[in-house]
């Protein structure tokens, strides 16, 4: 299909994500019905109510799920044909650290992605130590994950996600369960990363200086543009919805 080749040209090789006419069912109901999106900016925020499709979009990009129909190009790769290669291109960070840290020690956790790329274990461990040192966490390797604070755990998750060197980082509300100071300091670290970042968040303040906001509503794009345009509209929309619900949870 010509759409795939066109998307590849548009998004370029280094990073970039393009979805063309993507259809996806969630359970028995359709979620995306012909979604078109080209995501090339460095930092993109995803907003929308629970169930609007933010998580599904992130999952499609990492290859955790495949669309029923349509084309997705991620960092120059067709998401269907290269599903196996996507985890190396798209690091994924979830909200709950306890759902995603798989190993008892920091070093093993960070080295896992490298070992999955086919590096021998010793080299993967050495690579993990180098990455930790480069991010001011020298000496963390031996530490037990259980002894870390919540913010430190999420930092480990982020480092584990970027360890294989993906050009893209997909994040599903990565800072939601952290206190404000920790959120801000992690956000500053994220800003310094070379990766293209795609972050779903309910904390609109965090997204204020992103390059672009995509607002999803029931699987469709309801708003798309710079934060100063989209965020106020989204906020007003949600407040109006809460008011009409009159105390009943939506």
């Amino acid at each position, binding site marked *: 299909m010509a759409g795939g080749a066109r998307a590849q040209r548009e998004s370029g090789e280094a990073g970039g994500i393009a979805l063309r006419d993507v259809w996806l069912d969630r359970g028995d109901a359709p979620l995306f019905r012909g979604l078109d999106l080209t995501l090339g900016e460095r930092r993109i925020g995803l907003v929308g109510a629970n169930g609007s499709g933010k998580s599904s979009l992130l999952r499609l990009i990492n290859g*955790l799920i495949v669309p029923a129909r349509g084309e997705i190009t991620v960092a120059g790769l067709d998401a269907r044909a*290269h599903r*196996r*290669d996507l*985890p190396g291109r798209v690091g994924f960070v979830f909200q709950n650290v306890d759902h995603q840290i*798989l190993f008892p020690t920091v070093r093993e956790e960070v080295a896992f992605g490298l070992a999955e*790329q086919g590096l021998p274990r010793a080299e993967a461990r050495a690579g993990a130590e180098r990455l930790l040192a480069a991010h001011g966490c020298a000496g963390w390797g031996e530490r037990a994950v259980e002894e870390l604070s919540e913010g430190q755990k999420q930092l480990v998750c982020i480092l584990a996600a970027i360890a294989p060197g993906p050009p893209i980082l997909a994040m599903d509300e990565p800072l939601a369960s952290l206190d404000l100071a920790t959120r801000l300091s992690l956000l500053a670290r994220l800003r310094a990363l070379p990766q293209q970042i795609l972050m779903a968040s309910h904390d609109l303040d965090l997204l204020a200086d992103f390059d672009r906001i995509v607002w999803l509503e029931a699987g469709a794009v309801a708003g798309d543009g710079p934060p100063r345009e989209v965020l106020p509209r989204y906020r007003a929309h949600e407040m109006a919805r809460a008011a009409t619900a009159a105390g009943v949870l939506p």
Partner: protein
Amino acid sequence: MMSSYLPGHSPLHRLPAGAKLLALAGLSLLLLPADSALLLAGALLAVLLAYAALGRRALARLALLRPLGPVLLLMVLLQAWAGDWSRAAVGAGFAVALRILLMVLLADLVTLSTPMQDMMDALERVLRPFERFGVAPRKLALAVALVVRFVPVLLSAWRAREEAWRARSTRRPALALVPGFLAQTLRLADHVADALDARGFGRPADRPSPSDKRTMP
């Protein structure tokens, strides 16, 4: 971290894990026919001295063996009963109890002086030849790591449930907590499987992928 390993630099610590495991297997075979209570008591004393040499924390571990006491006592009594309470039967009973205690202490000595990772590495080496029969040491190592990682997570989830119970009830937490805890564990498993998939573990190639898996982007 959760482990029975005691960090240290004793000669026992410096021995490779494989050598210790082989020695343990050898000793267990050697001790099998031993039935002199005196000999066994002497060996037990030697092992206790080894514990003492490892320091106070090693000796403190002996307290964990307390539940073994009643079982060993029961064994001696059963042995005596089987031998119509003769002196020889009681003596034989004690010899058996001593030998079991000795083996348990020897085995724990290996555990005490060997980090879990070294133990796992030794196991992986043993399993490598079986790889062609479908045994996957890499998957096994991952599974072991997951257990060690998630015991504390599940333990605190259980404690949170106990606390929620106590906040609403004056009765002691009961088995009513178990089903919800099981459901929570299975939900957690779904999330963890997702996280593992997101990092490319065991992802199937829908079509053969032309790019080399080893190249770093």
